[in-house]
């Protein structure tokens, strides 16, 4: 094992109650991974990033994206771009590249196992922040329902094709990405609200529920019997809660570390750190290659149903 730990810090707009630090060994490298929540305070996040700049190997941005990408077009997220610009030396990444690789791998593995296939009903709570996952389910022949309009604006309209998703993205994202991000995604205390069960019908119609865990948690119903959940950023308590609701299989796109699965931003930052912290980050394929060398990838587990 070589040298001092590579320090990776995720600055998140999420709740500070989920803060944690772990030290892990992956491949022949040691990493110290920390997550720092700013409870939705964008200015505090900016200060934290500026303070960390030049002092850590890589910075992850949690609870916000720098770009959203759909059907080959990238849409800059105003607040995310602003936060990224607070660091001048240390690369700042949002996990989009890792989402596009590890999440595809997770879905492809489910297809190879026969868990998903032609006609499998999948509820992807939000697809505009993970178009690659939507493409992977579509490629497996799944019947897709994307809940972007439901979770963002309460519009009871599932988007059911990639073409329609791309159409909505083209019309809406250039402007929505300029709004304060807190209008579009739960941050801070909003992440701690009790599940409202508002999208119970969409969950009930699906065999597989996928996407951002905060959105799943915020809207999930009391029972999720027999379902497969494909998500990330879960704690041990979250996993126990999913088991109590009857979830049969949990697939996390990054592996558990001391009971938690870190956000893709942390894992991407870890890959970038392992690549020597090139300014501006690294190409997704390069990050995917080094993560594979480090043994970092999706993990599936069966949950013991607890009644």
């Amino acid at each position, binding site marked *: 094992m070589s040298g001092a730990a590579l320090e990776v810090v995720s600055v998140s707009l999420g709740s500070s109650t989920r803060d944690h630090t772990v030290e892990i060994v992956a491949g022949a490298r040691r990493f110290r991974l920390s997550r720092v929540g700013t409870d939705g305070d964008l200015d505090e996040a900016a200060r934290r990033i500026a303070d960390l700049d030049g002092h850590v190997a890589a910075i992850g941005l949690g609870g916000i994206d720098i770009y959203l990408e759909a059907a080959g077009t990238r849409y800059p997220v105003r607040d995310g771009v602003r936060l990224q610009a607070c660091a001048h030396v240390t690369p700042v990444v949002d996990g989009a590249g890792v989402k596009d690789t590890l999440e595809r791998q997770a879905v492809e593995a489910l297809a190879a196992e026969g868990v998903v296939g032609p006609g499998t009903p999948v509820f992807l709570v939000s697809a505009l922040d993970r178009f690659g996952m939507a493409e992977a389910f579509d490629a497996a022949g799944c019947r897709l329902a994307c809940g972007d309009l439901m979770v963002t604006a309460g519009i009871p309209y599932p988007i059911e094709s990639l073409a329609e998703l791309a159409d909505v993205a083209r019309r*809406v994202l250039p402007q929505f990405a300029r709004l304060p991000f807190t*209008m579009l995604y739960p941050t801070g205390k909003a992440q701690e609200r009790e599940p409202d069960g508002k999208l119970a019908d969409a969950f009930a119609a699906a065999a597989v529920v996928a996407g951002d865990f905060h959105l799943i948690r915020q809207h999930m119903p009391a029972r999720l019997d027999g379902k497969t959940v494909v998500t990330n950023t879960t704690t041990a308590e979250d996993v126990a809660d999913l088991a109590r609701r009857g979830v049969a299989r949990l697939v996390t796109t990054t592996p558990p570390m001391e009971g938690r699965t870190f956000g893709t931003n942390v894992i991407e930052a870890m890959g970038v750190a392992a690549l020597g912290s090139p300014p501006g980050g690294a190409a997704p394929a390069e990050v995917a290659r080094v993560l594979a060398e480090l043994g970092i990838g999706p993990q599936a587990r069966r949950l013991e149903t607890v009644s």
Partner: protein
Amino acid sequence: MSAGTAGLRAALADFAGRVNGDERLRKMIADWDRTIALEASEGGGEGLVVRAGEVRVADAMPDQADIRLRASVSVLEDVFSGALSPTEPYVDGSLAVQGSQEDVLRLDFLSLMIWGD
């Protein structure tokens, strides 16, 4: 209606017609009964009423409303005629919005689905 908001009223009628003529947008507002007041900073205003998946221009600016937009007549007219995205005046402060976040985003969404791109 005042003479000062005649252009706005025409823009609203066009907006309502575009929503009502689009089956997908009508589905998206099928559950959304709302009253929207548009207050002109110069005085006066107009309104929109959404009921059972259909949008119509209110006879007069409603006193009670679920969503209130306040801006100059020209900004309101530009927003509802598609000349200006609602995001731009909202972000630069020339359009003030009151209402639940979900309602405001749904209204923005309708506008962008008509004129976005």
